[in-house]
């Protein structure tokens, strides 16, 4: 039954408690691991032991676990939200969990670790600053542990925790833990990541929120202590200033401002800035908020900037500091994680959204696929759901970007299928590519001959695309690559006719009558 606390603190004591509560910072983390690793049990315990779980939720769970798991509380039922999942006994999507300690508030993106759920892991990791990879002490480092660690590093998470779970089932043996640490270090090799390794038992509670007397050989902080003390948010603050414009704010003649969230860096009134893509230079006049003008604004703050000069700015433009310029290009090389059941179509057009900018783009080539278990580069013609590849994308409007490794906001994008509106891919920008050597230097021409469509392939070593020629747009002649609409129309027609063009590896020069 609900009741007030029995021992009421003095009101000024409570006031100081309240101030401390309001000043807590926030850590977003993601977890990955399969059911067998005890991930849900670990999260359930973090929530439970930190009193994030209320009594009646617990009662509901105790009711639901009858018949599945008699006896002890099944912590995983606290986190497996949807009915379909409860029936299947696996977590199939990303779920967000919240708990707080007196030091910090935590948001957990809880993602399943099964191979087919790479997309969920990537989604969960995209907003996180720390990932917990769970390893079953009995099994050691499995392919999926490598996968989790790779995704955490790919998504640029500054912190990685490797929690070696089920230590109780290996007799709390230090040598088991040490050998897993060794294997992990070897796998990570020269990557920049230095994980924090902690031996735990989620079920028994060892080293989760209190240090374990069963493992006196381990003297590091327990998992929660580590999570409470790891520094957050430092990196983006010291990066160059980037401000993607969300909206132009013009309530009356006297005010013109640009609303957005600072992606990185800091800004003060009087600082010189450049507006991209126009390249116009001006200075910041004021930083406006509902709570008054600010003397400065830093990464993650949602503000409205007014500029000293009248500059033509629209949503999607980026206001930047003058020190380090971002790149600007139509030709983007990116690591792409394919999220949709319908595979990527080479040559297909997608909507691309990066920061606040939308454009259309064409998937020009797949350079190689990354085998997520071995990290080997493999050549491929197709990209299926949960696969990761390095690709070349050509955008209709130039993109202002930084490499993802240096800026997670200006270096990321999503692809949207214009027909279904599904979010089909997540992109991490590596840089721009040399347009000369990419897929669209390869050409085909088409003509109607005796009522048949004849496609002539030129320059076959670079795969298919549409011919470029001086006399673009000729009815039967070659089409210029610039003529995107015509390319689209032709490709659409070919798809409707269920005709696939010869692809990269086996295409040969010559005429194809269709």
């Amino acid at each position: 039954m609900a009741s007030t606390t029995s021992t009421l603190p003095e009101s000024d004591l409570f006031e100081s408690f309240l101030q401390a509560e309001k000043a807590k910072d926030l850590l977003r983390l993601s977890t990955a691991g399969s059911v067998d690793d005890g991930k849900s049990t670990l999260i359930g315990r973090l929530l439970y032991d930190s009193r994030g779980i209320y009594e009646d939720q617990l009662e509901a769970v105790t009711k639901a676990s009858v018949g599945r798991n008699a006896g002890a509380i099944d912590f995983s039922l606290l986190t497996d939200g949807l009915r379909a999942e409860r029936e299947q006994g696996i977590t199939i999507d990303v779920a967000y969990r919240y708990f707080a300690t007196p030091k910090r508030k935590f948001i957990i993106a809880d993602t399943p670790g099964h191979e087919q759920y790479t997309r969920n892991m990537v989604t969960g990791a995209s907003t996180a600053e720390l990932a917990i990879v769970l390893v079953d002490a009995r099994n050691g480092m499995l392919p999926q542990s490598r996968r989790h660690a790779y995704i955490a590093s790919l998504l640029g998470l500054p912190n990685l925790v490797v929690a070696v779970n089920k230590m109780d089932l290996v007799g709390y043996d230090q040598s088991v833990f040490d050998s897993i640490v060794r294997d992990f270090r070897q796998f990570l090799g020269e990557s920049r990541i230095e994980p924090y390794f902690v031996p735990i038992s989620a079920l028994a509670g060892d080293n989760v929120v209190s240090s374990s007397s069963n493992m006196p050989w381990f003297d590091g902080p327990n998992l929660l202590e580590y999570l409470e003390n790891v520094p957050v948010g430092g990196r983006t603050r010291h990066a160059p200033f980037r401000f993607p414009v969300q909206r132009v704010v013009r309530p009356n003649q006297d005010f013109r401002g640009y609303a957005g969230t600072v992606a990185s860096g800091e800004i003060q009134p009087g600082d010189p800035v450049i507006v991209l893509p126009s390249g116009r230079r001006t200075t910041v006049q004021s930083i406006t908020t509902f709570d008054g003008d600010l003397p400065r604004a830093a990464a993650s703050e949602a503000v409205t900037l007014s500029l000293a000069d009248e500059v033509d700015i629209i949503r999607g433009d980026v206001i930047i500091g003058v020190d380090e310029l971002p790149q600007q290009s139509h030709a983007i090389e990116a690591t792409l994680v394919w999220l949709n059941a319908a595979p990527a179509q080479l040559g297909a057009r997608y909507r691309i959204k990066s920061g606040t900018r939308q454009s259309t783009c064409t998937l020009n080539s797949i350079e190689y696929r990354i085998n997520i278990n071995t990290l080997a580069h493999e050549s491929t013609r197709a990209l299926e759901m949960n696969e990761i590849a390095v690709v070349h994308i050509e955008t209709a409007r130039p993109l202002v970007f930084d490499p993802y490794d240096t800026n997670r906001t200006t270096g990321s994008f999503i692809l949207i299928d214009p027909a279904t509106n599904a979010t089909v891919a997540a992109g991490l920008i590596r840089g721009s590519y040399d347009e000369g050597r990419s897929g669209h230097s390869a050409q085909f021409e088409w003509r109607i001959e005796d009522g048949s469509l004849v496609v002539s392939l030129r320059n076959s070593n670079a795969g298919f695309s549409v011919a470029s020629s001086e006399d673009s747009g000729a009815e039967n002649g070659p089409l210029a690559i610039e003529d995107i609409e015509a390319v689209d129309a032709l490709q659409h027609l070919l798809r409707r006719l269920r005709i696939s063009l010869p692809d990269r590896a086996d295409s040969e020069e010559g005429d194809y009558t269709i």
Partner: protein
Amino acid sequence: MRPWSHLRSLEAESIHIFREVAAECQRPVLLYSIGKDSSVLLRLAQKAFYPGPIPFPLLHIDTGYKFKEMIDFRDRYTAELGLKLIVHKNQAALDDGANPFAWGTQRCCGALKTTSLLDGLREGGFDAAIGGARRDEERSRAKERVFSFRDKRGQWDPRNQRPELWNVFNTQVHPGESLRVFPLSNWTEMDVWQYIHAENIPIVPLYFAKPRPMLVRGDSLLPIEQPIPRLPGEEPKMVMCRMRSLGCSPCTGAIYSEADTLPKIIEELVGMRRSERQNRVIDHDQDGSMEIKKQEGYF
């Protein structure tokens, strides 16, 4: 430099979401339910668009069973902020005698909330409905997206949600389809109260404890605002109590409480071991009932 607290971090995230809706959706509307979360939503919307006005109307789905204090607060506060308020009621169902006792809570909610909401959205031609739901409220909400897609019938398919990465939101819909947008997704009940306290945000007086007439039935305190079937010999008593969440009066129980100020409410919450929707009768109809309601179009 002001400290970068979790509240400021949540505030900035919500403002970003509001601005994305306003920039990319054709006809957004803010679903205003008068409760504490709605009050926080309004403050965040003010902040998101300052110094401009909030660029969309509010829509209140009135079941006809709301507390009078809620309706008074709604009319006063929205007028004070100069906002456009649309009130939608399923009058046909009310004329047919819709009430939770005769119809059962599931059918009553279906008619007065879900159907009424879908009708209200359709009539206004809204393609994005901004709501105050939080992921910590209920199990199935933990997997809800910030921009949550609804098909032409307003329904949610939990197994086919758009992946949501970074803070890059996919707002694309075809005609007739729509989005539900939840700027408070990552807020907890405690965050909401702390923010109300920090920002001095007006809320309905029902949240504060005072002596109110209640039917005491077992552990439950039932408000007698609307006629409610009584057990033999049952008489209302004055009880020091407050509402922890606000819904329809026949389906929202009060809790015993002495908390008549914001710090006292927060203090109470620290010691509280029950989640806030626990007093909402409607969630308990069947296991997973919120998930079923949501699939049908409920918020």
